C-alpha cells in the first residue's frame, strides 16, 4: 500500500456567488481516502459532489479548510507546483470524453503522456488501449467510435501516465447501462492493477454500488458513509 497517495480533506468549505445569493457547495467536509483505495461519492445535482472533486484535483481553491494529497497541503504549493501535479499525478475523467477530435485514439493518449512528461511513448499508449479492449480502434478518430468506446479511450488517457490519483466526474453519465457497467469494471480492474487512489462522483446508485466505500453528500455535507467489501468483478 502506497501511503503517500492518501487524499485528505479537513473541514473544507467552498461557496459560490449565484444570482440568488451565495451557494455553499461544500460546508465543512472532512474525508480521508486511503492510498490505493476507491470511493464513490453520490448525491443529487447541486449536492456539492463535483466541487468536492474539483478541490481535490486543484481545479478549485477552498474558502477554508485543508486539502492534502500525498500528505502535501495543496494550499501550500505554488501555482506551478499545483499545475505540475495536475499533469503528472492526476488522471481526470469527465462525463464528456473531451477527446481531441482531430487526433486518433492513440494520439490522444500520446499527448497526455507528453503532457505528463512520462516516458513510454506510443508502445505504452497502444498497450493501454489494448487492455481496455480497443485493439481495433487504436488509429480511429473519436468520431469513428461509439460513445462507450470513446469513454474507454478517455479512461485509457486518464490512466496512461500512471497517475497516483484518478478523479472521475460522472464518467458514465452519457452512456447506456451496459456501456456504463463496462466502463466502471474497466476502471476498477485497472485500479486493482495500478493501486491508484480513485474518487468517482456519480448520481447513479448502480454505479456507486460497484465501489466498496460510498460517501453520500447533501447540501455540501457528508450525510452517510458506507463501507463494505468491494463486489467481485464480473470478468
Amino acid at each position: 500500500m502506497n501511503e503517500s497517495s492518501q487524499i485528505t480533506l479537513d473541514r473544507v468549505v467552498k461557496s459560490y456567488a449565484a444570482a440568488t445569493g451565495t451557494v455553499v457547495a461544500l460546508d465543512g467536509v472532512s474525508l480521508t481516502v486511503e492510498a490505493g483505495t476507491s470511493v464513490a461519492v453520490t448525491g443529487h445535482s447541486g449536492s456539492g459532489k463535483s466541487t468536492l472533486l474539483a478541490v481535490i484535483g486543484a481545479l478549485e481553491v477552498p474558502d477554508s479548510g485543508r486539502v492534502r494529497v500525498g500528505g502535501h497541503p495543496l494550499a501550500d504549493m505554488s501555482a506551478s507546483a499545483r499545475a505540475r501535479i495536475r499533469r503528472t499525478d492526476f488522471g481526470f475523467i469527465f462525463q464528456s470524453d473531451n477527446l481531441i477530435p482531430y487526433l486518433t485514439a492513440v494520439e490522444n493518449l500520446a499527448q497526455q503522456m507528453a503532457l505528463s512528461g512520462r516516458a513510454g511513448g506510443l508502445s505504452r499508449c497502444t498497450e493501454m488501449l489494448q487492455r481496455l479492449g480497443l485493439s481495433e480502434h487504436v488509429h480511429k478518430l473519436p468520431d469513428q467510435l461509439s460513445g462507450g468506446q470513446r469513454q474507454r479511450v478517455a479512461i485509457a488517457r486518464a490512466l496512461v501516465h500512471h497517475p497516483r490519483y484518478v478523479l472521475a466526474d460522472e464518467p458514465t453519465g452519457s452512456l447506456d447501462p451496459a456501456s456504463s457497467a463496462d466502463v466502471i469494471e474497466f476502471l476498477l480492474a485497472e485500479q486493482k492493477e495500478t493501486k491508484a487512489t480513485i474518487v468517482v462522483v456519480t448520481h447513479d446508485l448502480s454505479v456507486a454500488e460497484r465501489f466498496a466505500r460510498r460517501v453520500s453528500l447533501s447540501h455540501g455535507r457528508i450525510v452517510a458513509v458506507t463501507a463494505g467489501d468491494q463486489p467481485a468483478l464480473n470478468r
Partner: protein
Amino acid sequence: MQNPLLKVIDVTRSFSTDSGVSEVLSNVSFELEPGTVTSLLGSSGSGKSTLMSLVAGLLRPDSGSIIFRGIEITALDDTACARLRSRYFGVVPQRGGLLPYLTAGENVAFAMNIAGLEARKREITALLDELGVAHRSGHFPREMSGGEAVRVAVAMALASQPDLILADEATGELDPATARETMDVIVKRSIDHGATLLYVTHDVQMAGYAKRRFTLMDNELTAS
C-alpha cells in the same frame, strides 16, 4: 493570381445508414486562395461538417481529390495526414476542444506541443491577449463563459501558426450578440496571422462575415 492554398476537386462522399447508402456530398469542387475568409453555409445534415472533415483529412472521399499546398491529401496515409494537419492546420472544433483540467494558458501550450512547437509563456500570453482573454490565462474552462472558451479555442488553433484554420460551428452554442462579437475576432485574428479561414455555420448572418460564401444544399455546393 496566387496559387490556391486548397483545391477540392469533384469530391463525392456517401455514408451507410439503416435505410441504405446516403450520399451527402456530390461532385463538390472549390478552391481557397491564401489569406482569404470563406464561409460554408448549410442546414443541419447538409454535409458541411463532412466536407470540413474531408478537407482536414479526417475522412476519405469516395471519389475526387483534395490538394493542399500542392500535396494531394487524399493520397496520404493516416500518419502523413496527421503530420500535415498538425503542422499546417488549426482546427476550432464544434465544442471548444479545451481540456477541462488545464487552464487557458496550459491549453494553448498543449496545442503548441501537439504542433511540435516549443510553448513559450510570452507567446501564449500574447495570443490570449490578442483574443481578449489574457486575464483568463490561469483559469480553467469551467470558470469561463462560452464566448471566452471559444476565444481560447481560437488561440489554440492559431498557436500552431497554421496556414489554414477550419472552424466548425465554433460560435454555434453562443447567444447571438456574443456569437457576432466572437466571429468578428476569429476573422480579424485569422487575417492578422495571414491564415486562410474556412468556417461552417448554419446561420446566414454568421456566413456574412466572409467575403466569399458557399452554400451546401441537396448535396451540392454553390457560390454566392
